[in-house]
C-alpha cells in the first residue's frame, strides 16, 4: 500500500491486486506500534535502534539494510502523521511512544521508549490511513483478485502475474513493467497461529514455483502472548506498559531468564522461557499448558486508555477482564522472518550467473513476504510496521527509477498462463481426491509438532518425511463446489498449494541448520555457531536444494556491529 502510494503520487498507473478489500489485510491486526527513534519520551537515536535490531536479529540481519531502515524511521513516521494517522499524543502534542521488547538506549543500556502508537490499534490505524491516502491518489484496486502465478520470460525477467477474479471465476493475465509482492506472511502453516486466515504465503509460493529461492525459512517468530486456545494476539504493548508473565506459582519467572530486560526481553527469549516453564511443570490450568499475563496492577484507566483492544479481545476470547484478572497465554506462531530475498531497494535478488544477489528484473518484494533481511533470525516488536513503510517507499522509488529505463512491456510468452490454468483444470477435474481441510489440518499439525519453539533432530527428520507426504496428498485435492462465482473452496485449495510450498521450505531449511540462532532453537545444537552458520539459507523449491550466502555485515556508513553473545 505504501509502495502503491509512492507510484500513484508519481503519476504512474498502478493496479493493486488484493485477495480481500484492502483494509482487511493482516496489517490491520498489528497492535503495539511502529519503531522510530523520535526521542519524544526518552533520549534516542537511530544508531541505538540499529544496534538493537542487529542484536535482536542474532546477527543474521544484513547491516546495510538495517542502517537504511533505522535512519529513515523518523521520516516515514512523520510522513504517516502528515497523512492523517491518529497517533496518540503526549502532553506536549508530540507522538506518544511506549517501551517495547529489545529496545535499549546507548547500545544495550537502559530500556528505550521507541514505539509510536495509536492505542493498541496501530496497524488498523496505519492500514486505513494508507488506504485513505491511496483513495486520494486515485490508486486503482482490484479487490478480491487472487494472484496465482508469476510470469517470467526466458531470461528470467518478471512480466506480471496470472490472477483469479474471485467474484467471477475468470483467470486473467496482468502484464506489468514492474511487479511488486506485498503478500504478507504464512504463519497459517502452524495450528496455533496469531495470523489471519488469508496469511497463506501466496507470494512466497508463487516466487518458489517460478524458480526464485526462499531465504531463511527456518526462522519463525513465536509470539509469547497468544490467547490460550484461540491464538489471538495479545500485544507486547501489554508488557511495554508494565504487564508481566506469571507461572502457576505466581512467580514472575522472566526475572530468572532475563534478569535485566525481564518481560521485555526479545520475543524468542521470552517464548523459549515460557515453553521451558510449561515443560518443567510450572504451567497453569488443568493441563498445566499455559501461563498468565498479569496487568490488573496497571489500573483500569491505563488499560482502558492504552490497551482497549486487548481488553476487548481478552473478554471475548479468554472470558477474562484484564482489569481484574490475568489473561491465559501461550507462545503462538506469529511472524515469518524469512521470505523472498531482496536488497534494500526492494528488488528481488537471486543467484543466477555471476553471484548470489543478482537482481531479478521487474520483480520487487516488501514486507513480511520479503527477506531484506532486517529481522535476521528474530524480529523485534514494532519493527515490522516500520519495515513495510520504509521498504514500501524505497521499492516505490526504485520502480519509478527503473521504469524510466524500461518504457515498454517485454514480450509475453505464449504459455504465460498455462501453469495457473493447469492447476485450476486439475482441481476442477479431480475425482476421488483428498479433502482440502483434512490435508490442511495434517500440514498444520505436522509443522506444530515437528518445527515449533524448540526443535529436535529426530522430530525434524520425521517432519521432512511427513511434510513430503502432505505435499504429495495436496497434489490430489478435490473440491465439490464447482461454481464459477465466488468459489471459496477453490481459493482455499489454491491456498493449500501455497501453504505446502512454505511448509516444505521451512522444514527442510530447519533440519539443515545445525545451530541455535534467534527463533531457531535446536535441542541438539543449543549454541550459535558463527564459524559455520553466520550465513543466509536459500531454498530452491524445484529440487529442494539448499544454498547459502553471506550475511552483509558492513553497514552503509557506520562501523559494523560484530557478533557477540546475546543476553537481555
Amino acid at each position, binding site marked *: 500500500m505504501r509502495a502503491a502510494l509512492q507510484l500513484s503520487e508519481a503519476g504512474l498507473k498502478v493496479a493493486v491486486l488484493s485477495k*480481500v478489500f484492502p483494509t482487511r489485510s493482516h496489517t490491520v491486526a498489528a497492535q503495539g506500534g511502529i519503531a522510530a527513534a523520535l526521542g519524544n519520551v526518552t533520549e534516542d537515536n537511530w544508531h541505538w535502534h540499529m544496534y538493537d535490531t542487529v542484536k535482536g536479529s542474532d546477527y543474521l540481519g544484513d547491516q546495510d539494510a538495517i542502517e537504511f531502515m533505522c535512519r529513515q524511521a523518523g521520516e516515514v513516521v512523520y510522513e504517516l502523521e502528515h497523512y492523517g494517522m*491518529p497517533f496518540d499524543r503526549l502532553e506536549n502534542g508530540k507522538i506518544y511512544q511506549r517501551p517495547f521488547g529489545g529496545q535499549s538506549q546507548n547500545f544495550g543500556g537502559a530500556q528505550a521508549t521507541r514505539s509510536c502508537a495509536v492505542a493498541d490499534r496501530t496497524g488498523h490505524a496505519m492500514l486505513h490511513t494508507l488506504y485513505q491516502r491511496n483513495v486520494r491518489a486515485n490508486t486503482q484496486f482490484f479487490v478480491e483478485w487472487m494472484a496465482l502465478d508469476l510470469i517470467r520470460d526466458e531470461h528470467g525477467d518478471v512480466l506480471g502475474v496470472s490472477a483469479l477474479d474471485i467474484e467471477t471465476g475468470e483467470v486473467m493475465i496482468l502484464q506489468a513493467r514492474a511487479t511488486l509482492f506485498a503478500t504478507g506472511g504464512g504463519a497459517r502453516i502452524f495450528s496455533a497461529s496469531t495470523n489471519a486466515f488469508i496469511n497463506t504465503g501466496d507470494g512466497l509460493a508463487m516466487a518458489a514455483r517460478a524458480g526464485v529461492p526462499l531465504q531463511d525459512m527456518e526462522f519463525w517468530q513465536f509470539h509469547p502472548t497468544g490467547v490460550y486456545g484461540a491464538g489471538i494476539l495479545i500485544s507486547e504493548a501489554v508488557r511495554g506498559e508494565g504487564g508481566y508473565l506469571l507461572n502457576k506459582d505466581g512467580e514472575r519467572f522472566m526475572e530468572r531468564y532475563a534478569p535485566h530486560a525481564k518481560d521485555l526481553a526479545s520475543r524468542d527469549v521470552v517464548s523459549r522461557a515460557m515453553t521451558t516453564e510449561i515443560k518443567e511443570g510450572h504451567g497453569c490450568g488443568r493441563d498445566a499448558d499455559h501461563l498468565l499475563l498479569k496487568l490488573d496492577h496497571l489500573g483500569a484507566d491505563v488499560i482502558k486508555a492504552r490497551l482497549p483492544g486487548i481488553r476487548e479481545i481478552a473478554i471475548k476470547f479468554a472470558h477474562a477482564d484484564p482489569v481484574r484478572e490475568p489473561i491465559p497465554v501461550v507462545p503462538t506462531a506469529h511472524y515469518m522472518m524469512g521470505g523472498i530475498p531482496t536488497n534494500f531497494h526492494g528488488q528481488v535478488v537471486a543467484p543466477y550467473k555471476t553471484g548470489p544477489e543478482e537482481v531479478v528484473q521487474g520483480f520487487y518484494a516488501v514486507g513480511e513476504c520479503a527477506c531484506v533481511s532486517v529481522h535476521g533470525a528474530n524480529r523485534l516488536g514494532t519493527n515490522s510496521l516500520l519495515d513495510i513503510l520504509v521498504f514500501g517507499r524505497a521499492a516505490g522509488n526504485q520502480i519509478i527509477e527503473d521504469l524510466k529505463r524500461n518504457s515498454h512491456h517485454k514480450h509475453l510468452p505464449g504459455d504465460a498462463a498455462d501453469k495457473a490454468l493447469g492447476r485450476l483444470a486439475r482441481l476442477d477435474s479431480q475425482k476421488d481426491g483428498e479433502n482440502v481441510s483434512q490435508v490442511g489440518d495434517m500440514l498444520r499439525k505436522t509443522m506444530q509438532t515437528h518445527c515449533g519453539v524448540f526443535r529436535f533432530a529426530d522430530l525434524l527428520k520425521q517432519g521432512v518425511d511427513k511434510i513430503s507426504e502432505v505435499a504429495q496428498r495436496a497434489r490430489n485435492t478435490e473440491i465439490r463446489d464447482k461454481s464459477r462465482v465466488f468459489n471459496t473452496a477453490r481459493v482455499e485449495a489454491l491456498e493449500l498449494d501455497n501453504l505446502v510450498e512454505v511448509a516444505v521450505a521451512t522444514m527442510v531449511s530447519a533440519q539443515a541448520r545445525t545451530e541455535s540462532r534467534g527463533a531457531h532453537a535446536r535441542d541438539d545444537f543449543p549454541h550459535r555457531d558463527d564459524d559455520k552458520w553466520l550465513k543466509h539459507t536459500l531454498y530452491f523449491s524445484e529440487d529442494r536444494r539448499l544454498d547459502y550466502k553471506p550475511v552483509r555485515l558492513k553497514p552503509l556508513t557506520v562501523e559494523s556491529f560484530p557478533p557477540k553473545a546475546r543476553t537481555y
Partner: protein
Amino acid sequence: MKFSIYRFDPDKDEKPYMQDYEIALEPADRMLLDALIRIKTVDDSLSLRRSCREGVCGSDAMNINGRNGLACITPVKGLKEPVELRPLPGLPVIRDLIVDMTQFFKQYHSIKPYLINEDPPPETERLQAPEERAELDGLYECILCACCSTACPSFWWNPDKYVGPAGLLQAYRFLADSRDQATAERLDYLEDPYRLFRCHSIMNCTDVCPKGLNPMEAIGRIKTMMTKRTI
C-alpha cells in the same frame, strides 16, 4: 447445533433458499465463525468472507438471527436455534452470505476519507493536544464492516444518495480532526436532503455496531456543526 442458512449461487440457483444444517460442535468452536468453518468442512460450497477472526478486519459481517454482527466475535453459545443466517440486508447478494459492497464503499469514498491540509508539512509531526486527539476516539476505530449502514432503513431506500452511518461516522472523524482544514468543504458536500439529512435517528446503526461505536452521535454532531455555521 441447528442452523438455517441463506443460500444462493447464481451459477446454478434460480432463486435463493434457506438450507438447514445440523452439526456437532467441538469444544474449540466458541464463535459463530468457528461453527461456519466446521459446516464448511462438510459442505465446501457454503460461501462467506472471513479473515482476521478477531473482529478487526470487518470481513464476516452477516445477519445473525435478524441482527447484523460479525460471526468471529459472536459467541455461538446462547444463540437461539436454529441459528438463522442471512447476508447483510439491503445490498445485492453475490453468493450465499457474500454481498456486493460497491455501493457501501462508494459512499465511504464520497466523503473524502482522508486528511486535507494544504500547508506544507513541518519537518516533524504536526502537534495535536491529547484532548484534540481524544476527539477522534470512537471514530477512527471503524472497520468498514457495513453492519451499521445495512441495518439502516434510510440506507436501504437510498443507498445511492444517502451516505449512510459508516460514511458519516468517517466524515465526522475528519471534521473532528484538529489537523484537517476542509471543514467548510466537507459540510458543503453534506448539506443535502439525502447525503446527511436522510438520517432519521432510528439508531439501528449504533445498536448493531460490533465495535461499540456511535454513528448516530457523530451524525448529530455534524448536524450541530451545520446549524452553528448558519447562525
